């Protein structure tokens, strides 16, 4: 489903991704771990189409289609979703309005009918219930005044409503309390299906107890340094990233 080949990206002339190769098949969950500043969020943002980053080499295929030139909204329409490491506050725009506009914009992109008010309300009710999100949160402005954990949960609500083919979760677990972590993991696992794929970026192996990955990758110095099964996460938790330290980068 997702094929990243020799991806190079830079920001303000500074090279950050230096040749990423990564394949994720339908139905799979992959995890990326790696030291701070290694380029994990950069990769996530490049996938979502943020234009601050210049792709200087390599490419991204999604469902066999080259998406490198697509706008962020087109990628969303194709089915790529990014849960942000730092979800953004949007004063004056309520969660409901935002969800509705987003869902209908994506449906329109795919040539599907827009949902009417009733259908939308039903969908939202079901999703908020599943994720244990209070209704009053829907009337509030997107992420404004939300606690750190609430913001993360709100991103997961968006994911649940938009039902993407590929969800990229950038440190969605950080800042969540234990119960919230379980709820979020459940939400992610619900999305997990034959036709969907999930890329989880995390610093903690704990999340991977709930969302069990098929593969774990270590990203350091802009490259995937090592890939393995879920045991790799345990090993990293024990040993840290010392063996991927600067000297062996190049």
């Amino acid at each position, binding site marked *: 489903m997702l094929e990243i080949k020799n991806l190079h990206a830079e920001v303000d002339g500074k090279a950050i991704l230096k040749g990423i190769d990564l394949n994720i098949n339908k139905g799979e969950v992959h995890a990326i771990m790696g030291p701070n500043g290694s380029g994990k969020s950069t990769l996530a943002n490049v996938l979502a189409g943020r234009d601050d980053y210049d792709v200087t080499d390599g490419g991204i295929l999604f469902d066999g289609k080259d998406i490198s030139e697509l706008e962020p909204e087109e990628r*969303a329409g194709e089915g790529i979703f990014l849960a942000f490491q730092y979800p953004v506050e949007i*004063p004056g725009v309520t969660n409901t309005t935002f969800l509705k506009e987003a869902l209908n914009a994506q449906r329109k992109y795919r040539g599907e009918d827009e949902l009417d008010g009733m259908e939308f309300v039903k969908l939202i009710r079901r999703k908020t219930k599943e994720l244990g999100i209070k209704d009053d949160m829907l009337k509030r402005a997107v992420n404004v005044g939300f606690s750190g954990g609430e913001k993360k949960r709100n991103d997961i609500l*968006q994911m649940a409503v938009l039902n993407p083919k590929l969800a990229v979760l950038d440190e969605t677990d950080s800042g969540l309390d234990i119960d919230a972590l379980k709820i979020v993991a459940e939400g992610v696992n619900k999305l997990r299906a034959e036709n969907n794929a999930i890329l989880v970026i995390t610093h903690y192996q704990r999340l991977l107890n709930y969302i069990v990955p098929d593969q774990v990758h270590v990203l350091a110095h802009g490259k995937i340094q090592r890939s393995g099964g879920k045991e790799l996460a345990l090993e990293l938790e024990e040993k840290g990233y010392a063996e991927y330290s600067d000297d062996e980068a190049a």
Partner: protein
Amino acid sequence: MVTLASDKEAFIAQYDQSKGNLPGSDIAWLSELRAKNIALFEEVGLPTAKTELWKFTNLNPLKKQSFSAPSAQEQIFANSNELPRQLPRLLEINASHRLVFIDGHYSEDLSDKNLPAGVTLHNLSSAIKAGAADLKVALSSRAREEEQPLVALNTALMSDGYVLEIAKNTSVDCPIEILHLGGGKAEISYHNRNVISVGFGSKATIIEHVTDRSDHVYFSNSATEISVSENATLHHYRVQASNRAAFLYSSTEVVADKGATYDNFLLNTGARLSRTETNVSLNGENSSCHLNASYMGTDDQHCDITTRVDHKTPHTTCDEVIKGVLGGKARGVFQGKIIVHEQAQKTVGNQSHRAMLLSDRAEVDAKPELEIFADDVICSHGCTSGQIDKEQLFYLRSRGLTSEQAQALLVNAFLADAVEAVQNEDLKDLLLTKIVNWLEQNPN
């Protein structure tokens, strides 16, 4: 009809020619008042950028035009067939009482006859004829004509307007809508003078709608005197949506007594050039005002909002939230002065002006001024201007909104913030819709 270039001399000539026919020309105090004001106007002239208060708004485009006064024959009464069959209306027929001014002239025929109990309305000339004593006071009350030469010009040339009186202890539930429809003829100017007084303990909502029915150039120079008596509340809203050739100047002077509230909101999608001045004098203890506005401009529009609040007694409050969005080469100006007089302890004054620039060529000038002579006050002001937030834009787009949709949503939310304080729900919805419509018509 005489055609005149609109420099100082032209207006003075207009006065000389028309003074015998202006309303109240046979009333001594009024003739004297007009004479005094035309002399003052002659001395000061049309505002120029050399004056501190007009530093950011250049009237040269106005001076290049030549305006004439609409003569009696050209008034609405003679050519009402030119009017659109449906006059613009902000609120539903049943939800408002409407007064109609066409090219500066009050139209009794087109206005609603049945005003709510306790509300009296006269047009300026009949009020002058009726010889109301307080009218003399109201029309002579401006203390700073030197700073407001256009108001002096208005006083000299005022030919119509409304005098609206709300009796004491009257709660007028239904808003009074006042339509000022311009654009009937190219290159005319008019000088309307309005007086509003809200009696003790009364409550009313007035919605002014300034718009037009053509692309003609015209100049509307209006002035309004408002007094809000003890414990009274006036909600005074204004929607200015004129064509891109019009010049609008409006100066409103408000006096609030003890416990009175003056609640003002301006939605301005503008004109070629608009300047809206609002001066509030909080004369009585516990009086308060809101001066909120949302303005939008594009192409070469110029929008100036100038406010002044005088806190003259203890425990007075003012809140100003002004939001602007500018695209094209549009220019925005905000000047906000708050003066806390020596005796006005426990004053609370909050002012914020935020502008969003949608194009590199759009510009905004903001000048907040606080002059505080009392020591126990809480005052804050903040002025910001900047582009649309990129992080927010990306966040919305990453969820599927097109960049146009995302921008419209953000701009709308930005502007709507200032509409929040509007209490009439119908009107609030209407204002929000106007913002959305503007965004749709001006994608920038």
